């Protein structure tokens, strides 16, 4: 089913506004604001204990916010009469009664929202559990439980989907299956929010990223913007380093000659260094103008994994100071 994201301004929108949640003296979420839009996969990233699951529990009305609000489609989840028709959620795949069959588990869920057994059969088919529908869930592997949890989220064919760590415990085939499913669901116009502590996974699945640490927003950005922000200059290799460094410095480039890391060969007769302030074209043009041969010109950026580690490490060390200006404004 293809959905029209322009039906209304809040349709399919997840809005978290100045959300704070305290458990006793512990602050799990601290003034968190972000928005998730339909039609793309948004990765909800943070180290363990960053407040991802708490935020999801508050979004689903399971835990009450200490202050602030968390809205879906412009309203509170608790006010939905048949929530599964608009929001599907997978919080903890292990949280099922082992004594029930997959069919019975989905059966009571479907019945509570007025859905028939045809939907149960349809989602079991979609997640590939149709063959074990009558088997007790207690005998399921973690991967099968994840599939069952996803089936439950899809029961009401909702426009908004929340998945908490859906790839945990999956084998490579399962991980790829989830990745493709998430992308398909987003392409159908749905809002898809996936929490994870693995940047490498979100890099392959998500378009947008909401990164939090210690309950605070660190970055609300797209995967592409994050890669841009952690651009690390251009690696240049030449047999005449001294001449080229002179030329590039004159042209306004900043040259760093410290060893550039594993895999970069600096033999006798050529040397590699990193240039910032000039892009690949500018470097090539200057070198050509002075007749200096280039053996390699490679734009370098930190991997998203490194970017993520850097962002979250900064937050861990400096708390609120780790927030970027863009993130502090809360714009997307």
């Amino acid at each position: 089913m293809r959905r029209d994201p322009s039906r209304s301004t809040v349709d399919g929108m997840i809005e978290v506004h100045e959300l704070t949640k305290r458990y006793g003296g512990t602050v799990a979420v601290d003034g968190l604001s972000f928005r998730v839009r339909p039609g793309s996969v948004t990765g909800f990233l943070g180290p363990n204990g960053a407040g991802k699951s708490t935020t999801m529990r508050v979004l689903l009305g399971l835990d009450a916010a200490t202050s602030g609000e968390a809205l879906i489609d412009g309203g509170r989840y608790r006010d939905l009469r048949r929530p599964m028709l608009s929001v599907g959620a997978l919080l903890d795949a292990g949280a099922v009664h082992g004594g029930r069959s997959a069919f019975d588990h989905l059966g009571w869920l479907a019945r509570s929202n007025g859905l028939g057994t045809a939907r149960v059969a349809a989602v079991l088919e979609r997640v590939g559990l149709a063959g074990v529908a009558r088997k007790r869930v207690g005998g399921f592997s973690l991967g099968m439980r994840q599939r069952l949890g996803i089936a439950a989220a899809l029961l009401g064919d909702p426009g908004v989907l929340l998945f908490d760590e859906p790839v945990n415990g999956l084998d490579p085939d399962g991980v790829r299956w989830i990745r493709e499913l998430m992308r398909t669901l987003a392409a159908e116009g749905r809002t898809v929010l996936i929490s994870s502590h693995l940047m490498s996974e979100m890099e392959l699945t998500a378009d947008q990223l909401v990164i939090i640490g210690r309950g605070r927003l660190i970055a609300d950005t797209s995967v592409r913007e994050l890669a841009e922000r952690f651009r690390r200059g251009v690696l240049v290799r030449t047999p005449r380093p001294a001449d080229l460094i002179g030329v590039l410095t004159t042209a306004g480039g900043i040259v760093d000659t410290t060893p550039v890391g594993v895999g970069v060969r600096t033999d006798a007769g050529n040397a590699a260094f990193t240039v910032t302030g000039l892009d690949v074209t500018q470097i090539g043009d200057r070198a050509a103008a002075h007749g200096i041969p280039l053996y390699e010109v490679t734009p370098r950026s930190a991997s998203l994994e490194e970017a993520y580690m850097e962002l979250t490490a900064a937050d861990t060390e400096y708390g609120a100071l780790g927030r970027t200006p863009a993130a502090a404004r809360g714009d997307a």
Partner: protein
Amino acid sequence: MVDVLASEWRKLRSVRSTLYVLGTVAAFLLLCALWCWYLRGYWDGLTPERQAHAKAAAAAQPLLLALPVCGTVLGAVAITSEYATGMIRASLAAVPRRGTLFAAKAAVVGALMLGAGVVSMAAAALVGEAIVGKRPIPAFEMPLADQAAHVLSFGLLTAATALMAFGAGAVLRSTAGTISTLLALLLVLPPVLNLLPGPWGDRLWAVLPASLAEQMALAPGASPDSGPLSPAVACGVLVAYIAVALGAGAFSFIRRDS
């Protein structure tokens, strides 16, 4: 509400613990039949003088012991297993109106144990009638029609124990804690109160849940003065137990994070 009731009923009937509890009730009904059969043979072998003074437990005696325990276990597990597995989050995500969800759960638990209690007690009465027949044993002389009130009152007590355990379970969120609390109230407290001096032992005993069924309706073989409470007052006390347990449970269920 109809959808939520149907959903909770499906949830309750699709786990083995429910079948085990109902199976236990059935096993104790069988025990009632065995007891009647044994008693018939024993009675028939007695001399007429000894028959005149013989006393025996009623046909439903095994069930009188088992039903409150079965009700407690089923009521407790119906709510605490959701907290133990974490499935409560799926339930509340499916039905965020917590008052409705709590009421639907309580309704199916109460109705199932009321049904199990009434059906098994009635069956025990019929079994006693069929096996022992017209032998003039005191506990078997009450006509079936007169036993109906006791069948109903004990069915109510069974449902009450299930609902009290359910309410306590919503507060405690622990299966072991809930079942031990209820069994202490139902089984341990009555003999302990008997140790109290004078009228206080009797007065406190009279308002314990386990003593209420026989004060609500005369049990077969019991003396007419089985307790100080009138049937209406006894029934009111039982309802008060249910109301307090469900009230505390609902408050906890609706207000606390899950």
